[in-house]
């Protein structure tokens, strides 16, 4: 807030709404969000709050683009301009994912046969970093997250839940994305690794990275959250609009 430069948020969500139509259940219409708005300033961690099922992950997926947005704008500072992700073409969304926003989901969607080291290095490779440099950084990140070196050359599909989660975190934090989307990044981690992730988040925040996060873990939330967005309220209005 102190910096004039930081005035413009990395992400500005304006009046987004979302309804699911379940054609297989007699075209049942499920409004999940109604006119939700919030900003993610640079260097801030904004947490999506609300009960389980309130639509927090839905908001995250709408920003990332794996869910569509019915109305409203999702304005991302991207490539010296502003991109409305709610209306962007697929290849613009892909460019934004490559250059501007990283995503750590709860579950790793591992590609068969690709070793953990490559999985983690890939975001750097996509940005044109040389293979050797990307692998070096990936190795540093995996070591920091206590993934034993003997696992680096193996595909993460065979890893434990906690190990997969840490590979996922390593992949999400390796590239200098201006915006990080974090969906329960510490969900299946032990206390020590949770501390490492908190430390990683603090480092990125200090570098000016904006974060949009879902944390069930109150300790993590206390450690890094700057603001909480009430998804519940927007969800309730949406639900109310059906019964009305």
């Amino acid at each position: 807030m102190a910096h004039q430069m930081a005035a413009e948020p990395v992400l500005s969500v304006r009046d987004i709404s979302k309804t699911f139509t379940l054609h297989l259940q007699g075209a049942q219409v499920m409004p999940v969000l109604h006119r939700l708005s919030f900003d993610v300033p640079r260097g801030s961690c904004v947490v999506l709050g609300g009960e389980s099922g309130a639509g927090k992950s839905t908001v995250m997926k709408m920003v990332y683009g794996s869910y569509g947005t019915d109305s409203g704008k999702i304005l991302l500072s991207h490539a010296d301009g502003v991109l409305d992700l709610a209306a962007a073409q697929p290849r613009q969304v892909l460019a934004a994912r490559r250059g501007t926003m990283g995503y750590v989901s709860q579950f790793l969607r591992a590609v068969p046969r690709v070793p953990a080291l490559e999985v983690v290095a890939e975001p750097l490779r996509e940005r044109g970093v040389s293979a050797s440099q990307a692998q070096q950084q990936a190795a540093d990140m995996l070591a920091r997250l206590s993934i034993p070196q003997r696992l680096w050359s193996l595909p993460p599909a065979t890893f434990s839940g906690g190990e997969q989660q840490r590979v996922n975190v390593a992949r999400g934090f390796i590239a200098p994305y201006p915006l990080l989307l974090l969906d329960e990044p510490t969900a299946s981690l032990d206390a020590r690794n949770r501390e490492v992730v908190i430390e990683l988040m603090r480092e990125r925040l200090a570098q000016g990275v904006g974060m949009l996060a879902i944390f069930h873990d109150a300790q993590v939330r206390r450690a890094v959250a700057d603001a909480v967005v009430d998804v519940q309220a927007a969800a309730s209005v949406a639900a109310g609009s059906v019964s009305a």
Partner: protein
Amino acid sequence: MSLHGMSLHSMSLHSDADESALLTVEGAGHRYGQQFGCQDVSFDLWPGEVLAIVGESGSGKSTLLGMLSQRLTTDEGTIRYRPADSSGITATAGAVDLASLSERDIRRLWRTEWGFVHQNAADGLRMHISAGGNICEPLMANGARHYGQLRAQAEHWLERVEIPSHRIDDTPATFSGGMRQRLQIARNLVFAPRLVFMDEPTSGLDVSVQARLLDLIRSLVADLGLSVIIVTHDLAVARLISHRTLVMKDGVVIESGLTDRVLDDPQAAYTQLLVSSILQG
């Protein structure tokens, strides 16, 4: 992060106002007699982009692939292609209506710019010439004659597709299904095409062999910055290797978009049915 340091793959997908589509399809369709096999299809394919066409058998996806690859006529609409500067094909504003090209020009595109990976490897390979010969033939069609260089290229490509180089003189008739399919891919990529069509390239294979082949396709496509149009009935294949997906039913495209959005937030009733039918593995 400097733009100059970016890989070919990243560069080619970077959205840039100056960049032009490789293929522009507008209202295109193919008729079998009075019936349309596919109709009113429109999309752009961008350099470096992998587009999946999904649907069940009879949905028109193979007809669409046949039409796009000029094996079937375009009976309505247009398909415009942007040939390489070196192609010798005269293009207005950079692109050319494929229907206006002579057979000779189309053959030239197959020799220098386009590849086609068939579901059945035997359709895309010469089964009774050596593996090395299968890889070198496209290079020789483009004028390569130096035996030592051809042999070295063949060895290099066998290695890239994970076939032991000591099999170079064996014929694909002696190969397993997975090896044949990998050889077909090598034969299609050796001459550095710009656009590769793939028709169910993994569907005849065992599951473990499929995963290996898919991963190979995925990494080769990314390394080479290829544009690919792949037809598949398998949504997991689309998820793994494509950027964008078209869903077909009854000869028309009923839904299209970013692959993960089509699969995670399907809008059409039929797409929801397809997605809900995936076995969770």
